[in-house]
């Protein structure tokens, strides 16, 4: 018995150490980016366009570009994702069609981001003649974000007790009235959480926007949806690999702003989740 206990202690210690091995690099990366990036963050850095071959100035157009892309992505993926999840949970029976949709969601979630980039390029940029533009980039990112939104919405809908639907239907409400009044209101927290999470992923993606929207150097703001824009992740890629002699602190600063943006979105989703959980009545 003592030996078993000893073996357990050793095993647990090893597991703890491995976990530490995972945690420490995460903290190191964060620390490293924050410490070096902090020096770069000035008012000018955040609000000015890059100058002198990106060796001076700021990253304002890239920040605006990323925010625009997130907004565009949300506009396309949110309705489509939520509606198709509603279809799967509330309307679909176990038919071939439904199984095909589920298989498609699984498949979409696995497609590499660069393949989305290729697809977005041939379909939106070339075939539909949008050119490299905010519209094409947003559509590409939107399709990429769909699986996460659908999965999160599905889980949120499935978590709503079945009896709410029964009550509503038994009172003579139609399917859609039931979904709208007795299901969706209780699923919204889960939907929001999943959505914000998927958008934060989209914000950090580089590969899908490489050929669909991202501008190498465009020190002005876009005029329409058909303009190219700079974007934070691509800008970081450019100044750290493509342009020689950009001060390192610019790269760190860009990375820090990008991480801050993504973490801010995650934080929003965490707060939303906590807020709604407190109000939960069932």
């Amino acid at each position, binding site marked *: 018995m003592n030996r078993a206990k000893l073996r357990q202690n050793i095993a647990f210690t090893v597991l703890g150490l491995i976990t530490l091995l995972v945690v420490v690099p995460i903290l190191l990366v964060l620390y490293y980016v924050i410490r070096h990036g902090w020096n770069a963050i000035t008012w000018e850095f955040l609000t000015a366009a890059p100058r002198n071959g990106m060796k001076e100035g700021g990253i304002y157009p890239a920040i605006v570009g990323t925010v625009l892309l997130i907004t565009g992505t949300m506009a396309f993926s949110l309705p489509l994702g939520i509606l198709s999840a509603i279809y799967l949970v509330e309307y679909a029976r176990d038919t071939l069609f439904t199984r095909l949709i589920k298989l498609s969601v699984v498949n979409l979630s696995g497609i590499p981001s660069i393949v989305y980039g290729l697809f977005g390029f041939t379909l939106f940029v070339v075939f539909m003649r949008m050119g490299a533009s905010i519209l094409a980039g947003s559509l590409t990112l939107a399709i990429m974000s769909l699986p996460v939104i659908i999965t999160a919405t599905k889980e949120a809908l499935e978590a709503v007790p079945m009896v709410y639907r029964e009550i509503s239907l038994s009172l*003579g409400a139609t399917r859609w009235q039931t979904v709208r009044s007795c299901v969706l209101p209780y699923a919204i927290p889960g939907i929001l959480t999943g959505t914000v999470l998927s958008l934060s992923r989209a914000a950090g993606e580089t590969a899908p926007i490489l050929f669909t929207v991202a501008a190498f150097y465009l020190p002005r703001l876009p005029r329409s949806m058909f303009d190219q824009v700079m974007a934070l992740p691509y800008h970081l890629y450019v100044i750290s690999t493509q342009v020689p002699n950009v001060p390192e602190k610019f790269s760190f600063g860009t990375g820090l702003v990008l991480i801050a943006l993504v973490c801010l979105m995650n934080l929003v989703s965490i707060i939303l989740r906590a807020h709604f959980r407190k109000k939960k009545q069932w």
Partner: protein
Amino acid sequence: MVEQNAIIKTINLNCFYDNLQVLRDINIEVYRNEILGIIGPANSGKTTFLRALNRLNSLNINYRQKGVIVFEGQNTQDIPDSLIRRKIGIIFAMPQVLPVSIYENIAYGPKVHGIRDKHRVEQLVEESLKKAFVWDELKDRLKTPATKLSGGQQQRLCIARTLAIEPDVILYDEPCSGLDPISTAKVEDTMSLLAQSYTQILVTNNTKQASRVSHRCAFFLMGELVEVDQTRKMYTHPSDPRTDDYITGKFG
């Protein structure tokens, strides 16, 4: 009672879950303004029968049904789900309230049926609560969440909620199984008073309750309708020995 007085009639009703047959050739008539008790041991198909009447069974994707259900002389197959469920309301076994206020619970039905006038909705809520005899208890707390009420109050709230959609028939699926004796008595009183203007069907495991409340009674056993008769007659001179055995507690 005469044929014309049947409000609901089933003809060779057969119900299945996957390949499991839970109801076999049910032929029964429900008369206007009666309280029909349905008794029988567990798994005899009582609840399935009840939920077949307002088509709640079809929510289960494995459910299949054969035969005809006639409501007011019309094959229910030709009536949309939402309309048949509005005409035939149901009270579930455990009190099931929506996690909103008492008022909103009752107003929900009228609202989905397109009553937009706020005044009319308020009026309906009040009428329904009065008809279910809970108005006096609840009138000052209409804004409180329905989940805060006791089980008995919740169940009578559910009755009021069903009354608010102005149905012709009310189904009860073991409505008192989660309630204490005093709440049970209140629900039973309510049913008796509603009998003046509604047709009611009561599924219950409690043979005593059926004998107290119902005018006629149907005995279901293993998916078959054994007999249906005046309650008083069935409890004193049942025509089938199995009914006698069940009522006197030999099994069940």
